């Protein structure tokens, strides 16, 4: 069965940009959420293998999502894709268990690299 990947970003452009940047050989069922609450609702009801997570979002931001994933012990990988690229922010998301941090707009080569490294493709 194909993996389910969740793209969580409040911007449609960003979601589309990311979808397009995903490696061609990434065989996954892609679902999307436009804020942190939506994302958590999906994570609680279905099996999601990987989350591409934005940080700056309404309702619940990416940090909130990471905290919930950690505290609820959800079994999914998270790659943060954000415009907020300050070193301190990067450290914070890595401490919360994110796999990698990718600067927006997501670069296809970088994305392939990271996914390759963690055996997603």
């Amino acid at each position, binding site marked *: 069965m194909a993996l389910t990947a969740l793209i969580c970003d409040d911007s449609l452009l960003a979601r589309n940009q990311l979808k397009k940047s995903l490696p061609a050989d990434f065989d996954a069922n892609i679902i999307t959420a436009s804020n942190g609450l939506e994302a958590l609702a999906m994570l609680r009801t279905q099996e999601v293998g990987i989350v591409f997570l934005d940080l*700056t979002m309404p309702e619940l931001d990416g940090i909130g999502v990471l905290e919930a994933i950690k505290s609820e012990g959800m079994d999914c990988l998270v790659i943060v894709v954000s415009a907020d690229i300050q070193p301190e922010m990067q450290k914070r998301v890595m401490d919360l268990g994110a796999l990698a941090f990718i600067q*927006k707009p997501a670069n296809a080569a970088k994305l392939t690299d990271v996914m390759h490294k963690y055996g997603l493709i």
Partner: protein
Amino acid sequence: MTDFSFSEEQRDGLQELVNIAMGLASDKLARYLNTLVHLQVPAIKLVKTDYLPTHFANRYPQQSMTMISLGFFGDHGLRGETIMLYQLANVDTIAKLLGYNNDDSSEAEMLTDISSILTTTFLNGLAEQLENNFSYAAPRILSSRDQHFAEKLASTAKQWQLALQVDIRYQLIDYSFNCDMILLIPGEAVLRLRVILDKILANF
């Protein structure tokens, strides 16, 4: 009458590009101003210009504000003006942020300095996202202690058709201060901007 409004898709696209530009600017600024500064990626809203004076007058009742304007020009008819709004009570924090000693710069100079740093760094990032290049006019103080800022803002905003309201928040370890940035774009440049946005959106 020409319609200067944005479709939801265009608005979303612009917001994302502004977000990215602001992220780049924040990172550069944090490195420049040293790591004690944390800049959040700001909230952005597209608003009608006639909404601005009341909005900011309500937001800062009885507070004297300084308004600083900086004009920019890009290729393909893109141009506009940014307005930064500061509470005067923040001047000391700004001085510390920039590493200024109180003796060698006036309040006005510090405010124009921080304005040009914040706006040009942000606009350079935005120009990059739009595949454009901007040049800048020197910052000007539009109003200070002796003039009510909302009136001045009203007369300035009238000349523009589109406003992008950007709330910037700075958090320092020992202090914090807020300022507001407004991006104003004239009608014909709005049309140009939409064309550029559509091109970018068509790629995805």
